[in-house]
């Protein structure tokens, strides 16, 4: 079961994670972080397939991906 961790203070609200997410489950929230950006939130963790494309595309290392149990390697990175 993949776990997506979003460092809200690092997020600049650029939405690229949303652009990259095949499941379209990561979106900009309504809360502002200290810098005044709407930071990203995961609105349906259950549908996350652990592909980590959000983390790959994040320009600010604001997303960490961990896995509980088995992980399906979808591509070599």
């Amino acid at each position, binding site marked *: 079961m993949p776990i997506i961790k979003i460092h809200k203070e*690092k997020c*600049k609200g650029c*939405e690229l994670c949303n*652009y990259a997410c095949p499941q379209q489950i990561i979106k900009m929230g309504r809360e502002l972080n200290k810098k005044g950006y709407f930071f990203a939130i995961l609105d349906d963790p259950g549908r996350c397939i652990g592909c980590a494309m959000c983390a790959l595309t994040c*320009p600010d*290392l604001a997303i*960490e991906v*961990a896995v509980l149990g088995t992980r399906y390697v979808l591509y*070599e990175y």
Partner: protein
Amino acid sequence: MVNTIFSRPEAHRDIFTHYCPGCTHGITHRLVAEVLDELKIRERAVGIAPVGCAVLAYNYFYCDFAEAAHGRAPAMATGIKRARPDLIVFTYQGDGDLASIGMGEIIHAANRGEKITVIFINNAIYGMTGGQMAPTTMPNQRATTCPFGRDVNVAGYPIRVAELLSNLVTPSYVARVTASIPSQIPNAKRALRKAFQYQIEGRCFSLVEFVSTCPTNWGMSPIKACGWAQSDMLPFYKLGVYKTPDDPIPDAVRPREVKK
């Protein structure tokens, strides 16, 4: 047991960067840092920052760094690499730095076959100085110094650095990748790893051109900027490997046994 499969590489400091939201510089920085970690070369790496948006790159990489004058990073890298061939020397340059003021330096560093790695960010504009036309600016693309769009009759056509350098005979590795398409990011990292491996082997000069976005100066949202890079830049700046050190050397210049 929870195991982390993606987190900040050690070669990238834990710091909030100055880059604009959605700028692909951030992705490229992380890819370079990941490769430095994976190839275990962080502790003997020396990076050279350009003048441009990446002028503060040394704040983000956790390895020795120098700062070159605008366009001169390949020359500075030559000095460092020749003085200390055991170090892994890489430059990180934008299109103004490399393809405009520094064009002489990059061509000759490649032509001398300096065993260095160049990360070249092509975002078709000057970022740090506020959106001026660059050598890679597309025809009719607006910039502050071509407000009505780049006029090829006055400013000529955009320069394709990967193709330009691949014309040199001296063996080298030259590839063009992009981080503007999420699915291309693993390929971009593979090209970077190959480039650094060639340096580790002391084999040849290597350069990876990143077709990148500049949401702020293109006047687009980060996602639209990725779209524009794909629709307008990639057809002209085609992705791929343009030169490898295995390419044959023309007979006319193939080195014969030099009689001592």
